[in-house]
């Protein structure tokens, strides 16, 4: 799998649930170092492994070239353009009401993945990959296409503040 190189590019590894056994057709966890050597990638990878921040059973259908394993390119400039402190959590909360029609705040993820409690960088990266149509879910591509960097950053900031509840 090709991963663009350069100092402004990093990759985030997206996997299914680490702790649970996965169906054969889900993306499987592999060592991120095969794909990218940056500190960010390693940190994200470890976060995902230890905290399971990108929760399970949500790895949706992808193009053949992106199917297991998946590396999502992430531009440093995109994230650094919107510092965490300046991200508009209130705007994100409003925008999140578009997400909660499908994505449950309880963290329940059957059929539709949970998106709460993700770190902001992962959230931004995944939305970017939908926007670029690198991930295949049409509904998510459409929602992502309707949002600019400001909206995605605000959403990411808001969802990062949430914890599963039931």
């Amino acid at each position, binding site marked *: 799998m090709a991963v663009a190189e350069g100092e402004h590019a990093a990759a985030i590894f997206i996997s299914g649930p680490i702790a649970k056994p996965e169906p054969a*057709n889900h993306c499987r966890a592999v060592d991120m170092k095969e794909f990218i050597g940056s500190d960010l990638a390693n940190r994200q990878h470890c976060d995902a492994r230890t905290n399971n921040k990108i929760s399970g059973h949500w790895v949706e*259908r992808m193009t053949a070239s992106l199917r297991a394993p998946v590396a999502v390119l992430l531009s440093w400039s995109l994230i650094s353009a919107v510092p965490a402190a300046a991200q508009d959590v209130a705007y994100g909360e409003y925008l999140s009401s*578009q997400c909660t*029609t*499908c994505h*449950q*705040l309880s963290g329940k993820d*059957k059929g539709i993945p949970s998106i709460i409690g993700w770190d902001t960088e992962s959230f931004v990266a995944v939305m970017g990959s939908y926007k670029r149509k690198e991930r295949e879910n049409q*509904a998510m591509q459409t929602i992502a*296409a309707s949002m600019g960097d400001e909206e995605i950053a605000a959403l990411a900031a808001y969802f990062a503040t949430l914890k599963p509840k039931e």
Partner: protein
Amino acid sequence: MTKLTRRQFSFLTGGGVAATALGMPFIARAASPKVVVIGGGAGGGTAARYLAKDSKGAIDVTLIEPTKQYYTCFFSNLYLGGFRDYASIGHTYENMANEGVGVVHDWAEAVDRDKKIVRLASGGEVPYDRLIVSPGIDIQYDAVPGYSVEASNVMPHAWKSGTQVQMLKARVEAMPEGGTFIMVAPPNPYRCPPGPYERISMIAHLLKEKNPKAKIIVLDPKEKFSKQSLFQEGWERHYPGMVEWLPGSITGPIENVDVDKMTITAGGETYKCDAASIIPAQKAGTIAQKAGLTNDKGWCPIKPATMQSAMDENIHVIGDASVASAMPKSGFAANSQAKVAANAVRGALTGSRVFPARFANTCWSLIATNDGVKVGAAYKAGEEAIEVTSKFISKTGEDADLRKQTYEESVGWYDGISKDIFG
């Protein structure tokens, strides 16, 4: 969170409204602005919940909804097809009440727009500062000659969920071997554009298992319909030879429905059937008409940025009753519009930030076991109308894995939107 049934004592001036529990004292809240929501479906339920949740008690929210057990229209087709049990599409208002919504189970009989009061069928009155009207649709029985409320007990429209859907399923299951089912599809605009065709799919699924020689005829006033190529491909694949769709240009207009003879006449030809579903033309729910919120076509024009009625700035109309331009009449759309309205209402009453209107919709349909398809779009508020910003639709020829995943996604969505509406 306090149960706000206490509020009913504070501002219901008439009798007959059951208020059972007194919560915290309401002195501190006496001056809170009041929002009344008419209709506890996908639009009204969402609006009431979000207003209560987001205002954190700064707004008194009352929902007026006659039923204590609400059955969703969306996924009622899956009940018809045997994929869901009836209880699974039923919801109560208890969670919402616990979250701070004052729920009044009654009919909204009239709206006095000058006095800003909603009159209840029981005789009570509920004052409002802002009113959100989300009454769904009314069936225009007389749009189909020979059809009536009584006739709908024999040939159910089943377009408002509830017992009509149970009745329809029982009639399909009682069809004689090799019998004929006929649907009269509705003209545009109507609730749930792909709904009639998903219903055909689900009835075909039911018949394929129990009555495989049965036939299905669709008499459709339209020349084309939502997800047409996807449905027709699916019918050919799963139910070959069973479904015949006839547009109005072939059949001519529906001339008569006779529930005693079980016949439907169109363009001079009489079709005999063993079970039928007649889905007539529709208009905004009665209360919207009584309140003077409808145009000459029976629907409620709105201002896209806030979902405010074009007739009254103190009233917002959401969901199927509204003229939402590019947005279809769907539960998803109503839920989306509710959030825009709630944000605008809260801003107007409490000075909270008002963000730009954003809308979205996705309509999933099930064609056969694990064969799900979807269509959807994102929207923005234009000056005059709600406008599409991006859209998508499933493709014909998709592989079985993707279709199964789409179906599973729809099941997840049902669970998610149910929580979003009812708490």
